[in-house]
């Protein structure tokens, strides 16, 4: 088996395992009172320990939310006249949706900052889970593609 295929299989297995582990750790362990997360009281953490994790996670989450807000804002504020009659005739309600996009992202940002301030577990857990899902999902997807795609070049055994 080509070495790249082996890496593909490893990527799929590792990303699937890590994602399953994160789901288990975030949702099942605390609820089942397994004594792992339920023992973690964020209020007991030293501020430096807490904020060294909370600030990077919070900043990444705020950056994502700010991008969403910015997209909504651009759509709301841009003034372009579509030249194509078929577009003018259609009822485009993207401005209304953009308004809600701004509203929701701004609301989530406030909630996130407040959650981090009061040291709510979910204010860190949800962003961490989403970021992990995106990265592990990408690794998984590329791994799957490597496994299922046929190499177009013959393998040079030398």
């Amino acid at each position, binding site marked *: 088996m080509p070495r790249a295929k082996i890496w593909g299989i490893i990527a799929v297995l590792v990303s699937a395992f890590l994602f399953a582990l994160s789901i288990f750790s975030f949702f099942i362990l605390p609820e089942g009172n397994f004594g792992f997360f339920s023992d973690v009281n964020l209020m007991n953490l030293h501020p430096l320990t807490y904020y060294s994790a909370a600030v990077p996670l919070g900043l990444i989450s705020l950056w994502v939310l700010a991008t969403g807000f910015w997209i909504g804002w651009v759509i709301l504020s841009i003034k*372009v006249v579509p030249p194509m009659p078929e*577009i003018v005739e259609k009822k485009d309600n993207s401005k209304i949706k953009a308004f809600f996009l701004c509203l929701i992202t701004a609301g989530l940002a406030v909630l996130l900052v407040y959650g981090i301030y009061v040291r709510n577990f979910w204010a860190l857990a949800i962003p961490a889970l989403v970021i992990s899902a995106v990265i592990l999902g990408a690794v998984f997807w590329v791994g799957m593609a*490597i496994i299922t795609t046929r190499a177009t070049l013959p393998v040079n055994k030398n």
Partner: protein
Amino acid sequence: MRVLISGYRGNPYCGGQGIYIYNLSRELAKLGVEVDVMVGPPYPDPLEEWATVYKIENLNIWSIKTKDIPYEKLVRIFSPWNFADYILTRLHMFPEMETYSFRAFFALKKILKEKRYDIIHDIQSLGWATVPMKGYGIPIVTTVHHPLTKDREADLMGNFGLWDKTTTILFYPLVMQSFVIKRLDRVITSFREGITELNKAFGVKPEKVSVVYNGMDVDLFQNTGEPREENALLFVGNTEDSKKGLIYLFEAMTMLPENVTLTIVDDGPPKKMTAADMIKKFNLSHRVKFTGKLSYEALVSLYSRKTILVMSSLFEGFGLPAVEAMACKTPVVVTTAGSLKEVVTEDCGILVPPKDPIALKDAILKLLSDSELRKKMGENGRRRAVENFSWPVAAKNTLKVYEDVIREFRRKR
């Protein structure tokens, strides 16, 4: 003088950057400048005769679905920058410029252990890592033919619904470009109005912008002497680019006599459907044809045979087809959008306001009915192209900008 020209794409057959890098580096070398080129894929034609080339990796996987990425590229995704590229492209962003700038930053660090440059010339990438590159103590200039805000506006015009608009907004790295461009030592643009455009789009101070007209190969683009066709219009450009204003040209076509035909130098259906759909809508299928991509020789022949070149653009950062046509003694009908009113003077073509199909139709009719005027405009066009838009002239003017920037940089230190 030692110059490093840096561009994230170098394909000489599509996109302006490759053509720009190839010709500018060649002409600068002829002027005695030591030129190195750092470039991302698609790589340019061999430049080794006059420059040292440093090739920077990039998988070019934007808009390719994961399952359609070639196997040779798939197995290379798990390197840090390729993986960053992969994730960002899946989020509908266009990260080539960002990741190119980081790769170039680290590649340059290695190169500078052996070499030294007087100036770095960035070609329109404006990636984040261009700013820390200033830490190497070398002035950096950039060429921006037109701000991407114009492309985004044009794309948004054709978008319908929140998702289409969102993907368009995500695609253009305007925040990055706006941040980076203000921190570079000089911006070179290809038309005077570009100074205002760059100020409006990115807040670049006018005194930081220099105008250098683009060049073109006036030896290659010459009239072939083939007989001219009558009532044959020519359009050269990307039909998927909303800035080209093709819809107005098609509208003008519906008002022109039936014997007036249009040849479009670009791919038609099934590869590109936007123009084809409009042609169907305006019932012009029997009068419009696509040539697909052409070799330079075939393009020069077309310029030499067709009656008029038409550009119905809503914005142009230079308008290369107009200059190429002028060099082939072909009269042009162009809009006054962007650089076109500087490139085309009234003695070599007719200028009409953009988004005005009636004015476009009138101008085309005027030229079609007056062969003497066409001939005169053709002769004037050739003269103007040779005097203002040849690569030796562009290189000489670029060199003047380099000298000015280096002088200023040394004075400040």
